[in-house]
């Protein structure tokens, strides 16, 4: 399944790339992309692992860009 999130306040392109890299390494993630310009995070992953993935992704976002808020799109 595919889930979209808005990364509100995403202001650093390098951090966006780092977030993308880290989310891609999470268990159960098929493909994750962070679009810096549209401030969107799209995660494609296994259905049953999605809640865990979402939680982990949120932590990753907080770690790389503490001022960014991850919201469901």
């Amino acid at each position, binding site marked *: 399944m595919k889930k979209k999130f808005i990364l509100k306040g995403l202001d650093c392109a390098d951090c966006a790339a780092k977030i993308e890299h880290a989310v891609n390494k999470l268990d159960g993630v098929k493909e994750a992309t962070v679009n810096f*310009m549209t401030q969107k995070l799209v995660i494609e992953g296994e259905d049953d692992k999605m809640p865990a993935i979402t939680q982990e992704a949120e932590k990753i976002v907080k770690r790389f860009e503490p001022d960014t808020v991850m919201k469901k799109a």
Partner: protein
Amino acid sequence: MCKHVKQRLWRIIIGAVFFIAAILIDINAEWLNIALYLISYIIVGGDIVKRAVRNIFRGKVFDENFLMSIATIGAMLIGEYPEGIAVMLFYQVGELFQSYAVDKSRRSIADAMDIRPDYANVKRGDEVIKIDPDEVQIGDIIVIKPGERIPLDGKVIEGNSMVDTSALTGESVPREVEVGHEILSGCINVNGVITAEVTKEYGESTVSKILDLVENASSKKSHSEQFITKFARYYTPIVVILAVLLAIIPPLVVAGATFSDWVYRALTFLVVSCPCALVVSIPLSFFGGIGGASRKGILVKGSNYLEALAETEIIVFDKTGTLTKGVFNVQEVHPEGVSKEELLELTSYAESYSNHPISNSLKQAYGKEIDNGRISDVEEISGHGVIATVDGKKVAAGNIKLMKKLNIPYYEGEVVGTAVHVGIDNQYAGYIVIADEVKEDSARAIKELKEANIKQTVMLTGDAKNVGSKVAKQLGLDKVYSELLPGDKVEKVEELLSQKSKKGKLAFVGDGINDAPVLARADVGIAMGGLGSDAAIEAADIVIMTDEPSKIATAIKISKKTLKIASQNTVFSIGIKIIVLILSAFGIATMWAAIFADVGVTIIAVLNAFRALNVKNL
């Protein structure tokens, strides 16, 4: 400018005032001098240091805040106060500029795509109420006043007006609509009041489809973007390690080397180590290119497709609906023994009972009302044509099979298109040619593509060979494959795919009807006239909102410009950084050069990226 940005700007200005004061003040009062420097530093860079400390506790070490803090504090510790503060000051200026630029570009594209309708005026009984377009149902009657945005797709049932479709198609000339016409959501009603019946729910209507496409664009990244993020991932740690080595080894090994000199060089390295300029300017260029394209009515689903388009060598067109209008019209009338008008009139009458597309084209060419009283004894012979009595004359209109059946000798030469042969009272009266019409700008499109260095233009068609060849010759295409079944098209595209060079790409242009598999198979699938077909929007990588094939040439020009800008930025930023790194390792470049390599390069690259948004002359 938002509050946040203003605040940062003020901090920079106040900090700069203290900084200048510190430089100007008398050197004799050293404590005052240093105090002013420190105040300036805290005002300008306090938040960076704070963030650096906070991030270290979160386990994130090599971030920009940390690097900048070390570089600036380090510079001050070895007594280089002005440099340390200048680095922080200019770093902040660069950051501010960058976030302002990114914000501006996000906003300008959001504005260009501001087509979301806010409300719909729905007729309920005698009343007209304003509701959310989401709540309107199929079959509801909506009223659109002048100046309002059409909220949902529908069919006009009352009134006429001019409609501005520029937000959707990039076409500046308003379109006229009247009763019976389809209207598309997202367009603006210019002058008259129109009443329409809703034909699609909001989620299914044109405006939602386009917004969805644009908002989800560029989730697929181009090679340049992938390269740059990968580069940044290795670049920063490598430069930091080099900086550490530079600070420690030479003072121990080289005779006469002072510790503070080499630390200064190492700190210069740290200033250059930020990958910011690179990482922001590449996606910004692509975003600008995609935004610029959408202003021209060309929707690109991802920066990878924009990149592929610039590398296109072969463009394959579907004929009907893409290069031609897909509407059949009477092209030629060749009478024998009767006048042109008479032949057209009698044939139109004879065919008038049929609802075959050919009959419609004839009626359209004839242009007058059909008086049913003049026709009798209509007999349709399937696969042959029709025989009817018109004004007492026995008119037979159909293909050669019908002529043969009736033993009427007919014109046996080559005809380009579909020929309707006509016999009047068993005498041959000539034939009418009906064919698809070439679009006005098709020839120009092919010419412009050639100018844009496209190596091969190919047309695929299911039509007869002579029809295909005529169109191909007329438009100046390199190759044509005719009499293809839908399945053959995929095969032909695969054959062509094997002919292109390894790096080159093949683009297929279709109208989205029946060619979804081909659109998917090509490196870049381009659908034309995206306003009509949902299948096209889904299957294609690039959607051209208008019916003009010349937009493909425009799209290629935009893609080439965008790619050029992206590679300029890549080479320029990496180049400057490496030069400054080498120079500072040898002690030639100062920290001021490093500031330029970081902030100056960011600003130049961002300004360059902004050019991608400008597509006016393409």
